[in-house]
């Protein structure tokens, strides 16, 4: 890949007061690809996405989008640049209808005809949203709200979509379903994605490339296939091991990247 990355992050550091949540993260997302960032609770995944989307300002480092620095910009300027953040825990507008939620996704756009076309596109990927378009978003099921949050993000027609744990709180079947839709969106519509996940199995299946984050640092990176084949990922994120008889001693095993 000689082409310049769509999103490039260099040595990013973000703090909550004295707490350093992002400790010098660097990563790249190329156009048309899906990149996943894996990590356990508290690794700093959400903080990383919030720093990209301008909800939080980094202390150090740079975020280049299409070659332009965007770190520290106000969130609405980041959105206008073409970055949409689908937050952890859906965060829909509970008293507004599904249709109104979707139209707010296109808040920064003015091309009415194109917006209508994109809404039809969202409805074709998530037929349940078309069916429930007049229902208040707060009364949707958790899975439907996740679909709405993704659909609302698509309404921006983003250059890149940042997804924060889309599998959170969903049944395995619904998780599969949503990740299958994400895969189609990437393949058929060419949507570039950065997906933060704890569910490494589905995330690595979807992604082209991956990073592993721990305590605010990137500790491993590579193609999704390479990561999926790695022993560390297998035992600590995919939840199965090839250790057989040693299985009961697994808790003692040291991660090799430490």
């Amino acid at each position: 890949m000689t082409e310049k990355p769509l999103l490039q992050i260099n040595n990013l550091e973000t703090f909550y007061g004295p707490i350093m949540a992002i400790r010098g993260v660097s990563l790249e997302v190329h156009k048309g690809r899906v990149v996943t960032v894996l990590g356990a609770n508290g690794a700093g995944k959400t903080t990383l996405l919030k720093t990209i989307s301008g909800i939080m300002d980094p202390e150090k480092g740079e975020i280049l989008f299409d070659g332009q620095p965007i770190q520290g910009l106000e969130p609405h300027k980041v959105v206008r640049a073409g970055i949409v953040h689908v937050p952890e825990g859906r965060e829909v507008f509970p008293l507004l209808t599904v249709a109104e939620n979707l139209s707010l996704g296109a808040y920064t756009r003015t091309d009415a005809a194109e917006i209508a076309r994109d809404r039809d596109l969202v409805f074709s990927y998530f037929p349940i949203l078309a069916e429930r378009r007049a229902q208040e978003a707060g009364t949707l099921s958790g899975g439907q709200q996740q679909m709405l949050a993704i659909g609302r993000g698509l309404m921006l027609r983003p250059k890149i979509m940042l997804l924060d744990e889309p599998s959170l709180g969903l049944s395995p079947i619904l998780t599969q379903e949503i990740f299958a839709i994400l895969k189609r969106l990437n393949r058929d519509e060419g949507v570039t994605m950065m997906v933060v996940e704890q569910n490494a199995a589905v995330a690595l299946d979807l992604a082209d490339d991956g990073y592993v984050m721990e305590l605010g640092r990137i500790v491993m990176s590579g193609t999704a296939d390479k990561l999926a084949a790695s022993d560390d990922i297998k035992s600590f994120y995919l939840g199965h091991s090839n250790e057989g008889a040693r299985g009961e001693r697994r808790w003692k095993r040291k991660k090799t990247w430490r």
Partner: protein
Amino acid sequence: MGVLQLLISGLANGCVYGLIALGFVLIYKATEAVNFAQGDFMMLGAFVTLGLVNPEYMGIPFWVALPFVFLIMGVLGYLLDLIVLRAVFGQSQVAVIILTIAIGFIIRFVVGVIWGHEPQSLQSPLALGDVRLGSLVLGLADVAVIIVTLLMTVALWQFFQRTKIGLAMQAASQNQMAAYYMGIPVKRVQGMVWALAGIVAAVAGILYASKGSIDPTAGFIGIKAFAAAVIGGFGSLPGALMGGLIVGLIEPFAARYLPPGYSQIAPYALLIAVLLFRPHGLFAQVRAKKV
């Protein structure tokens, strides 16, 4: 006075309470701040209109002056948010409350300095006098107040449902973080809500001054309007209006049918009853977030 007359004058008072309550709720929903100067905003709106329209001041025709009143009050609301309230951003609720109470004092003081402390009457096209239908005496101003409030309610409703900025205001008040994620400039939208609250206060002030005279202490009815907003359910715009109407109706009927003095406390007695039995108010919009 007949029951019908009580009803109409009660409703007219209730409309003014309701519009002030609407201002409370608008700002509360958008910014989680309670603007205790909302009653004084109403009074200020009345005096700004009076200053522009009355012949002893500038003498501009009412309908020409009206857009300027809205502009002035809207800009004042916006600036108050921009300059004063954002300075205490992140401070406790108490700080905001005390600040807005202080702003109320300042408004009363400034109005007193500019226009004096004597009661004055606005040359309002709504101040139509009474009409006698047999034994019935109807205040036409009261009827006009009710009609204008109805129109204002419909206009606001359309604004929130049909305009992009109205939808953005709803979004920012329901889920501020998600509004940021959608690229809504939340701070600016909140400023516009303050501007809108200023305009609503101006309408309330004009209606108030059309029913009788006005002086710088008129803003104290903001306390009743606050009670009305709580009775209606502090998070609900229709609730605020309904709460206002209820308080407006209770007063004259309590004055008529209860021993003397009770009408003063009747709205607050209702307030306490509502807080005890329906703490979210009569018309609350509560929807738990799904996980």
